[in-house]
């Protein structure tokens, strides 16, 4: 009975499940791509305006795509009883929960990172800002999954928790949006962004350490 084996087994199971439910997983990514491609069409031939709002567009879309994918984090486990079994495991629930969040990020966050450079070019973002955009997404999207997990864990027991979930989670997403959006904006203008990146790193580390505990507690409450 080793904890690391359980951790990786949970990640593996969730990745296999994601592979077998492809359409469900592709949804948020498709949403992200669609929203971003619609902006240039809606705004028309104004490349400067588009360039100026590109960081905001990409980050707001990433945030909404993450929201869209959140519900799937614990829903099926809750419905089929796997969650009960996970809570009864002798391993600490917070670690198993972290494995689930990690798998969720690999399935929903990582694909955003892969398509983002392409979409950034589409919006006319300068090339030298691409690196920072990727860095902010790399640091920011795991935070979205981690914080989102708290909201989902609290609402998974409610049949129609979607609205409450967004109300709970969106305000907590705002700091990530502000610092990440700002970093990309500054980078486009050729300014240093160390401060924003450092703040994003600290938010990520704090979420990594602090989020699994309330998630585990909330799941125990929801299952009751």
């Amino acid at each position, binding site marked *: *009975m080793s904890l690391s*084996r*359980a951790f990786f*087994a*949970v990640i593996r*199971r969730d990745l*296999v*499940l994601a592979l*077998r*439910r492809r359409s469900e997983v592709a949804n948020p990514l498709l949403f992200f791509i669609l929203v971003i491609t619609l902006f240039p069409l809606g705004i028309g031939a104004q490349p400067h305006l588009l360039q100026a709002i590109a960081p905001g567009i990409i980050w707001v879309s990433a945030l909404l795509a993450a929201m869209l994918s959140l519900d799937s984090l614990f829903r*099926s486990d809750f*419905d*089929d*009883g*796997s969650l*009960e*079994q*996970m*809570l*009864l*495991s*002798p*391993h600490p629930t917070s670690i*198993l929960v972290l494995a689930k969040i990690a798998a969720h990020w690999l399935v929903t966050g990582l694909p955003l990172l892969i398509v983002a450079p392409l979409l950034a070019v589409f919006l006319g973002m300068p090339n030298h800002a691409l690196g920072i955009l990727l860095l902010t997404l790399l640091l920011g999207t795991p935070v979205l999954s981690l914080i989102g997990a708290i909201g989902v864990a609290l609402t998974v027991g409610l049949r129609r928790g979607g609205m409450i979930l967004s109300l709970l989670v969106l305000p907590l997403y705002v700091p990530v949006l502000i610092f990440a959006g700002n970093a990309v904006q500054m980078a486009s203008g050729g300014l240093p962004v160390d401060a924003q990146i450092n703040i994003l790193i600290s938010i990520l580390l704090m979420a990594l350490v602090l989020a699994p505990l309330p998630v585990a507690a909330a799941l*125990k409450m929801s*299952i*009751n």
Partner: protein
Amino acid sequence: MQTKSTHSFKGAGLSCIRDDRVLFEQLAFDLVSGQVLLLEGKNGSGKTSLLRILCGFREPDAGAIYWCGDAIKDSLFYAQMAYVGHLDGIKKELSVLENLKISLALSCSGRYSIDQALAKVHLAGYDDVLVQALSAGQKRRLSLARLLITENVLWILDEPFTSLDRQGIALIETLMIEHCANGGMIVLTSHHDIALHNVDVLTINLS
């Protein structure tokens, strides 16, 4: 066959109140290795609530539960129990083998290997079949196979005979007798009359 160590599972003064309705009060039991506790009662009498309290999913409104003399939170309870509830706890998109492997990874390995357990519940040869292709009875047998592959002393079973045919019921009864003979204990609810020979069965009627 006697095991070296005996375990005890004890509840004292348990009560459960749901929506201002008292389901049970001052309920006590004392179970030791080799015994079965059968919970009886009509629908809505609190059988499942009691099982969920015993699993630690719910806090009892009064009373406490002890595993080998310690409160369940401070004991090895979770390493030594297994629960099969109304929900199977198996993923329908995964194969039989994948489902059992994840259960094994979440717990310690027990008396039987996965192959042996599948043979025991008459699911040998179904390893690579996706669970969504199984019948309800087969799914139930699969979730009961989980009890065999993980290390455990206490089985908590909520209506284990649901959707099983007569052979399936006999099979599970045999497994239960064997578990008790090996020093295990079982808490279960059932609407069926269970036939457990040579096993000490305690009964609590909740109605």
